[in-house]
């Protein structure tokens, strides 16, 4: 389980706190949604979980399966099953998508004490997963994310997730930029990974995604704090009323 306690985060080299005391407990088998206005700190939380070093934890703790992960490097966390689907996936010219996928998968398998996949085996798995997510094979021949549309990049993220089979999935606005059909495909991909061994944190602005990926809990993040937690119906309520009421509360 993921346990976040009284987490305070600021940007390294700066003073302003972005996360101002987050408490959150997410058990395996559960899906929690995080909603909240722009700039409230959702991506910051996601990055801090993945280990981006632009941020500094000034107080609090984060444990995953009982282990403190805050001192681990991003790759160590990935090996422990942490996966962040980026809000803005990075383009890497010159690195072939297949080379990347293979290096990533083998690194994680190695860290888990599993054998590396042979080339044909790897090709088979990628092809299979890509087909499920309707990622065309010519996309896999291109350099990583280079020239992909916003929606195509998001699909690549889910493809990576389904290959790496992480146990803590953090999805940062994976739905933005997806057309209606793509949203369904991606949601199916995510749902396929849902299970008792996996915890998911789904960051979104839109209630629509939560029709497909039905959350166990919805948290509202405003100005660096979780200001409300409820069931899936909270998303519907927010859709109607917006965040105005929390703006005040969080100030």
């Amino acid at each position, binding site marked *: 389980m993921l346990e976040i306690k009284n987490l305070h985060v600021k940007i390294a080299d700066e003073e302003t706190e972005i996360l101002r005391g987050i408490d959150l407990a997410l058990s395996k088998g559960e899906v929690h949604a995080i909603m909240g206005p722009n700039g409230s700190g959702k991506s910051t939380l996601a990055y801090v979980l993945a280990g981006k070093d632009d941020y500094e934890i000034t107080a609090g703790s984060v444990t995953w399966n009982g282990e403190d992960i805050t001192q681990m490097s991003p790759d160590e966390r990935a090996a422990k099953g942490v996966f962040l689907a980026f809000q803005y996936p990075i383009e890497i010219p010159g690195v072939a998508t297949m080379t990347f996928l293979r*290096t990533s998968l083998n690194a994680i398998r190695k860290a888990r004490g599993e054998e590396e996949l042979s080339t044909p085996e790897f090709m088979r798995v990628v092809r299979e997963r890509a087909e499920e997510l309707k990622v065309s094979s010519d996309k896999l021949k291109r350099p990583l994310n280079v020239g992909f549309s916003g929606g195509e990049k998001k699909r690549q993220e889910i493809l990576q997730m389904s290959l790496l089979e992480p146990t803590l999935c953090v999805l940062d606005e994976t739905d933005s930029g997806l057309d209606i059909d793509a949203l369904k495909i991606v949601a199916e991909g995510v749902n396929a990974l849902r299970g008792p061994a996996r915890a998911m944190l789904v960051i979104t602005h839109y209630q629509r995604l939560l029709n497909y990926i039905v959350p166990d809990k919805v948290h509202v993040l405003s100005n660096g704090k979780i200001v409300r937690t409820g069931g899936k119906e909270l998303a519907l309520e927010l859709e109607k009323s917006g965040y105005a009421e929390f703006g005040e509360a969080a100030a």
Partner: protein
Amino acid sequence: MSVEVLKTKAEQGLADQYTAARSGLPGAGNGWAEGLREAAWETYSSAGLPHRRIEEWKYTDLRALLRDAYPPAPALAEALTGEDVLAALGPVLAGLDCHRLVIVNGQFRLELSDAGGLEGKGEVFSLGDALGDPSHWLKQTLAQVNPPLNDTVVALNTALMTGGVAMRIADKAELGKPVHIVHMLTSGEAMSVTTRNVVVVGAGAKVTLLESYVSHGSAPAQRNAVTELVAGDGSQVHHIKFQNENPETAHLTSWMTRLGADVSYDAFQFSLGAAIARNQIFVAFAGEGSRSHISGAVLARGRQHNDTTMVVDHGVPGCESREFNKLVLDGSARGIVQCKAIVRKDAQKTDGHQMARALMLSDGAEFDSKPELEIFADDVVCGHGSTSGQVDAEQMFYLRARGIPEPQAKALLVAAFIGEVIEKVENESMREAFLKLTESWLAGEGEGG
């Protein structure tokens, strides 16, 4: 009135060598060859080794860098075998399907070469032998292909050259395989070697020429190599250099190239080795409608010093030039790119661009870039740029968030950076070989560590 300049130890050594060797150098007894050497020695000795107050050499001060002049390499001191040549080339290049011409310690070695008669489409012979009995075309070519003014390193080469390859490709000939000139140094004592190649590509011919510079052992060496290349009208030339000499080597090479009309010239230089490397490229457009695309990849670490200096001279209208260099610098390595494009008054419609990019892997590394445009025509498009930076932190984080450990993530990004320029090599086997060599360099192998 001239003031006697104090010679450095290396300069004194070179002067002694010339005096001792001149009567025994190839071509001695032939008036033309002797005349060439004398004139070149004059040019050299009036200025001596280049130093930092000579603008073109300000980053590579040979007076300071060369402490001693090593004695000339013994011609046939060591019985080398074909296997030794392949071993020096390394596994990835040894397998290249090519016409191999091997120069050992400054002598063209027929018995180690496999030119296959150039498929009957040209001629190859030993330049050293030819100096004593020069053919008409050699006399019209040697030391006359776009010679740089006042470059004393090239002059020194002409004065002291011991041999190399003289080659002519027939008009319209299309060679099925690349020609690969291997410049090898044997093991043994510290040595100097001065080689010269002359290549004339006939009109409409197509040729890929690879020059490799490798060491067989770890002996300290000073290399001065010049290649003169004439590309006939309508010819297509791919000219590639691979340098992986031992970390005790001072490597000076100069390519002097003259392009006729409608020539397509693609050059690529890949530098991995040597302690000090100066890669000079002089290209002159002598006919309209030609293009010259020169690119380079430098991987340097430790205390390696790598200087690429180019002069591209647009003397006629309607030509296109590109110079694109990428350097990966680690440790306290120093990388230099100087590129001057001259566009003369008549060279209207010139299209010239240059770019140099360095990826700095450490705080101790240094990159100097000096682009220069001398434009005397008014209807031209010219530009230059240069960048230097570190590995992109966002890209690093993305890769590491996918479980890829830091060294491996870094290697992927560096390979991607340098891959962009290696991709310009048209020959697939060479391209693959260079990519593999990059991988092993990144894995910590290679020279200069």
